[in-house]
């Protein structure tokens, strides 16, 4: 089924008649999106015993008696979101050729910035004379889907926190802590620190064959922090590593740049559809704490993954560049 132009038209088109046999496929795609959509993923060491223990624990979990669990894989609509309990609830255990995982849901109050039209004020002319723009903030309840995932072939347990655009970093880490505690409370596995992914930053940057770098933040020995981001049209491919200003700036320095934040994208197309899974690795600064030369990156933002295959591709590249055991 071809989508309509924009969400409203797509929804109208679907409502006007769903072709036989498409509902199951749509639900499968939705589950794939829930498992792999925009996630902030932390990787934890996992040995063979830990893998078996996790499998046993996941297979023993019961789904919560919540509305989110009852309607899974469907999502809560606006009315249901307004009244639903925001606590974490277990929705489903899923397995596929890549691994086995548990899907959990929670509700988060997302702060949204919205421009207010002058006409909405009684004294609109006066407001217009005082301000060029009036902006308001409101809280929007959004349903999040998190995943605890045990891959069949990799040696890392994954905790994937839903990270839609606008989700604050501290909230992402808080959600992670909750999921990590859930595993600890069940006495399944002792999870220490997640793998440090910082080594992958330079490895991705130095490998010109590895996707397109779309954003870099780095420090220079001339006492500057540079944030460079490529502007490009959706259909074109550009790489920040090769951009003239970036190359020229590097040449002018006699010392190397110190990259601590980087986004990579792998554009591909199949069956006339375009996919561009992305990976963002971000440290808070160019150096570590307490005299440590390198910063720590505890997790990666893996986005734009429409299919599980896209997510698997990115996480495999990440493992490789971070020097993690396959």
């Amino acid at each position: 089924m071809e989508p309509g132009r924009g969400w409203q038209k797509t929804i109208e088109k679907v409502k006007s008649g769903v072709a036989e046999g498409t509902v199951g496929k749509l639900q499968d795609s939705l589950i794939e999106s829930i498992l792999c959509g925009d996630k902030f993923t932390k990787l934890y060491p996992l040995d063979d015993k830990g893998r078996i223990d996790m499998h046993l624990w996941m297979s023993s979990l019961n789904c919560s008696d919540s509305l989110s669990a009852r309607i899974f894989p469907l999502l809560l609509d606006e009315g249901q979101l307004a009244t639903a309990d925001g606590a974490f609830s277990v929705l489903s255990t899923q397995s596929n050729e890549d691994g086995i995982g548990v899907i959990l849901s929670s509700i988060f109050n997302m702060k949204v910035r919205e421009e207010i039209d002058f006409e909405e004020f009684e004294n609109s002319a006066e407001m217009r004379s005082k301000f060029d723009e009036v902006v308001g903030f409101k809280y929007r309840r959004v349903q999040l889907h998190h995943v605890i995932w045990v891959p069949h072939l990799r040696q890392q347990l994954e905790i994937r926190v839903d990270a839609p655009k606008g989700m604050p970093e501290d909230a992402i880490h808080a959600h992670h802590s909750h999921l990590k505690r859930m595993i600890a409370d069940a006495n399944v596995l002792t999870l220490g620190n997640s793998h440090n992914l910082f080594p992958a930053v330079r490895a991705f940057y130095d490998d010109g064959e590895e996707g397109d770098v779309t954003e870099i933040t780095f420090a220079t020995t001339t006492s500057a922090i540079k944030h460079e981001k490529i502007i490009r049209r959706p259909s074109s491919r550009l790489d920040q590593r090769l951009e003239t200003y970036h190359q020229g700036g590097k040449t002018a320095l006699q010392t190397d740049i110190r990259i601590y934040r980087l986004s990579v994208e792998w554009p591909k197309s199949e069956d006339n559809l375009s996919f561009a899974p992305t990976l963002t690795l971000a440290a808070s600064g160019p150096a570590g704490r307490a005299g440590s030369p390198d910063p720590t990156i505890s997790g990666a933002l893996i986005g734009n993954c429409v299919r599980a295959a896209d997510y698997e591709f990115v996480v495999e590249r990440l493992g490789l560049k971070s020097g993690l055991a396959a």
Partner: protein
Amino acid sequence: MTMCDLRKARETIETAGLDQPFLDVCLRVTGALEALDGDRGKFLPLSFFLTVVDDTNAKVALSALSYICTMECPPLAAHGYICDADEELIVLDDEDFLEVVKTGDLIHPRTGEFLQQARNRVHIFYSLLSL
């Protein structure tokens, strides 16, 4: 598009019988494009052209750019971007950009939201067609 194509565009402009100051602005814009080398013509905001045309007002510059973008074998193309709530710059698909210019309607590229009368949310930039 090569430097040769830009020369061809210049010839077309010179022989099109355009009035002054429009002709002068078109030629200055073409000259500025000829001076760009490497990948330096991928993102050319209106401000870039306004520095090139000196005292000429923005309206004439915009008309000249529209003319150059729509002439036969144009050397330049117009594109658009919007800024989202976090001030992030999102470049529009050319198809979506043309739609918003024609009708004012825009499908937000990230949210899929249908926005009416969205023309004033769109910022224009240009790029050399060779890049």
